């Protein structure tokens, strides 16, 4: 198999998966995420966190004095679960919408309107707009709701892709033959369309995972996180959202400040985020190439 893209993609996503599954047991990873409140130097001076990369903290510590590498490794699982949830919802809704639009007129009209309306809404602006609505902002199910909003914001594009793949298949000569031989709609769906969609699914999931990670990073930069809780502040009656998660995008909070004081925090977070996006992209491209090669070999 001469498909370097796929091999590298599998390797990169594999590494992230291993980090998510076995990260807490890695040597040198502090699974309890212990906070070091002050650090003493040789001369007895005290230092507050965040700490620079050193022997104790390989890539530095976060603002609370937690070892950054441990935090990132532990946060992998949460990051991946969030992405997986969003991708799952987006794929299910897009599949239903795409298939419905291929078979029914109502579905086709719905998809056209959906796509047309969403083509006037930049994804991030749409997400920020919806998350600012009080019932969503204060909802106890905010996590689920915001994941749902992010999932639906790009459903039209994916549904259209699935529909176009089905149309492409229906134009093949052997499909015409199948129709001429009296293939029923459910039978044809079972024998031709659903296997084709099945083969596409892994690639779709990988590509969407990359896109979602990209979007979550962008949202984090402007202070929009999908899991937050409100905590009481020093002034009575005022509350501020506090990040309650170890997911990677959270490390981009206070990015402007960190760029001057603690550059290692955003750099490490971005390195892991970018690594995972490139891994997902390469995986998707590699899978696409493998399908193309197989079709070429058959011909």
């Amino acid at each position, binding site marked *: 198999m001469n498909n370097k893209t796929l091999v590298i993609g599998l390797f990169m996503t594999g590494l992230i998966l291993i980090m998510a599954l076995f990260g807490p047991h890695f040597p040198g990873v502090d699974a309890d995420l212990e906070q070091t409140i002050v650090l003493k130097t040789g001369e007895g001076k005290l230092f507050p966190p965040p700490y620079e990369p050193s022997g104790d903290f390989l890539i530095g510590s976060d603002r609370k004095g937690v070892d950054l590498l441990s935090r990132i490794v532990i946060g992998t699982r949460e990051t991946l679960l969030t992405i997986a949830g969003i991708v799952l919802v987006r794929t299910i809704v897009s599949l239903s919408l795409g298939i419905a639009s291929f078979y029914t007129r109502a579905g086709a009209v719905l998809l056209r309107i959906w796509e047309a309306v969403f083509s006037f809404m930049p994804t991030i602006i749409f997400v920020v707009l919806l998350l600012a609505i009080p019932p969503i902002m204060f909802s*106890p199910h905010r996590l689920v709701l915001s994941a749902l909003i992010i999932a639906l914001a790009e459903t039209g594009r994916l549904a259209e892709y699935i529909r176009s793949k089905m149309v492409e298949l229906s134009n093949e000569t052997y499909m015409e033959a199948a129709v001429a031989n009296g293939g029923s709609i459910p039978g044809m769906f079972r024998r031709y369309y659903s296997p084709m969609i099945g083969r596409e699914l892994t690639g779709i999931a990988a590509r969407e995972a990359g896109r979602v990670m990209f979007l979550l990073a962008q949202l984090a930069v*402007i202070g929009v996180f999908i899991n937050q809780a409100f905590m009481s502040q020093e002034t009575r009656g005022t509350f501020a959202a506090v990040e309650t998660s170890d997911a990677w995008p959270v490390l981009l909070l206070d990015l402007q400040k960190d760029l001057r004081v603690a550059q290692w925090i955003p750099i490490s977070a971005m390195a892991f985020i970018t690594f995972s996006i490139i891994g997902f992209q390469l995986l998707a491209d590699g899978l696409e190439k493998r399908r193309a090669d197989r079709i070429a070999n058959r011909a």
Partner: protein
Amino acid sequence: MLKELGSAVVIWLIAFGFLLLIVLLPTDVVFVEGNVFLRFEGVTYEYSPEAHLANIREFFSLLAGHPGVGGLDGGPSSFEIAERFGRSLALIVPAALIAMIVGMAKGILDFLYKERKGGAASRWVTFGFLSVPDIVIIVFVQIGLLTAISKGWIPHIELYGHESPAQTLLNILFLSVYPTVFIANATYRTLRDQERMDYVRTARSKGTNPFRVLYVHMLKNGIIPILAQADMMILYILSNLLIIEVFTNYRGAALYLYEALGDPTKFSFGTLVTGNTFAIAGYLFYFTLLILAIKVISGLAKYWLDVRGREGIL
């Protein structure tokens, strides 16, 4: 053609109406107090269609009552909104032009040199910039500049704000990176698909000048799928604009829109800083209008550039 443009306008109205409905959602929430004084337990919210309708009525009656001026509740007037949008346009228009011109040029060069080492390397650059979130690029450029300034290699420039030409130029650069590689990728893929066409093979076998084949047969036929990507491109530009304006504190319409929505991360008990609906609606109006303008321009270009369009077949 008129029919197509008309339908674009109708869809714009539907989309803007939909956004307006979201913006005008009733925001009255009841704060639930816990056992301890001022302890936040959550909010209850009940959607009522009547309140929503009342909001919509109020919005339009105020709009009719203050045509063109606005400035209600200490919010910006429509002149200010337009001025701020103009500041955003100063970033969007150059970025979009760079993306179309440089992006297409890069796509064509990548295609011409696709068998060479340089071409492959250049396509990896495209892949890299498509995968790396633009904020990563911005952060590295800023770290580089901050270091250079602190070491005295370059004179001090303010990285945050909108007053100096340096900030505007930097932001145009940041904003144009992603759309440029996006268009480059689309151009390259289109040309690669065109190459398999029979008419291209025929033209080449007749010994036609390769550049003539590229221009007449491949680019003129491929321009439609490339222009179709321009609609997507503007969406990416606007999404990234919000990130860039908020992050670099460039006071354009996207940053003001973000601020007008009200800070979602802070509130005081019992009071809720709700967004200024007039301002939000105003900024959204301009942004969606810009998307419509791009759709119209790319639609017109399609007819003008494509032979089938000029001859009325399309």
